[in-house]
């Protein structure tokens, strides 16, 4: 399944409000600036900081 483009257009990272990219194959939304990775579950972006996979320290 793919995400609604209009929804993707208005989403930003809840952590730093950075621009995000949707990686459809991995079903994940990734912030360009902080690198937080937000899962997409059953077509629903989970834009919760607690649920995000964070990059290892020192890496972006």
């Amino acid at each position, binding site marked *: 399944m793919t995400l609604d483009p209009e929804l993707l257009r208005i989403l930003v990272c*809840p*952590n730093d409000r950075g621009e995000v990219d949707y990686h459809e194959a991995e079903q994940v939304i990734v912030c360009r600036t902080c690198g937080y990775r937000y899962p997409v579950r059953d077509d629903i972006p989970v*834009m919760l900081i607690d649920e995000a996979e964070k990059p290892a320290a020192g890496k972006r």
Partner: protein
Amino acid sequence: MDDWRSYDDVAVTYERVHAPRFAEPARDLLALAGVHAGHRVLDVGTGTGVAAEVARGLGADAVGVDASLGMLRVAHAAHPGLRLAAAGAIDLPFRDGSFDAVVGTFVLAHFAKVDTALYDIVRVAAPGGAVAFTSWADGRDAFSDTWLELVSEVVPKELLEPSIAKAIPNHERFTKRQAVEVALLDAGLRRVRTEPAQYEWSYTLDDYLDGLEVWAVGRFAKEMLGGAAWAGFRERARTVFADRFPDPLHDRRDVLLAIGIKE
């Protein structure tokens, strides 16, 4: 979140019992906020998508967010194509000024950090945009008194009360018109006003009792008692309700509709 504070496990019941009834105050709130076709609308605490779906029906570009993925899964199934995201009211995943109206139905009292949540809600509203909420104006009636009386027979008050206060921190506070208006003014909104509204909903006794399992008191009691004891308790509650009230039940609820404008 898979503890009793979460709405995940009660989403199906919420959609069946409450969503059809809550569409009515949602419609009134969206009218108060002046939502029309082409408006960008955010529904915070959308649950199973009630207000977002009403907004979409008005021709608005609606998005619903909720912290409960369980609720959103039901919203997605009930309203195909409705735009949804899991998000907290604090740290909303949207740019500043993204929406012509931000609404929330029966969600204000749930915010633990209400000032911070309102700050972020106002942030995503466009200048001149409306921020509007519904809030229960009273928590007491013969039905809920009976329910609390029954629950307090099986769950000690000293356990129940602090737990409920944690789940819905501002339940009492936002039953008051003035408190709602002050919160909106403190968030920087202007032309703040509230309108009282009254709704009368009819439930079969079984639907009404199912519906009670959705709210914090019911979720907590169910968790405390566990499977078999809960079933026994439900049976007793049904007997007491059937004894006191004619089936179907007519529940009359006072609601505040509050609005402010971002300048």
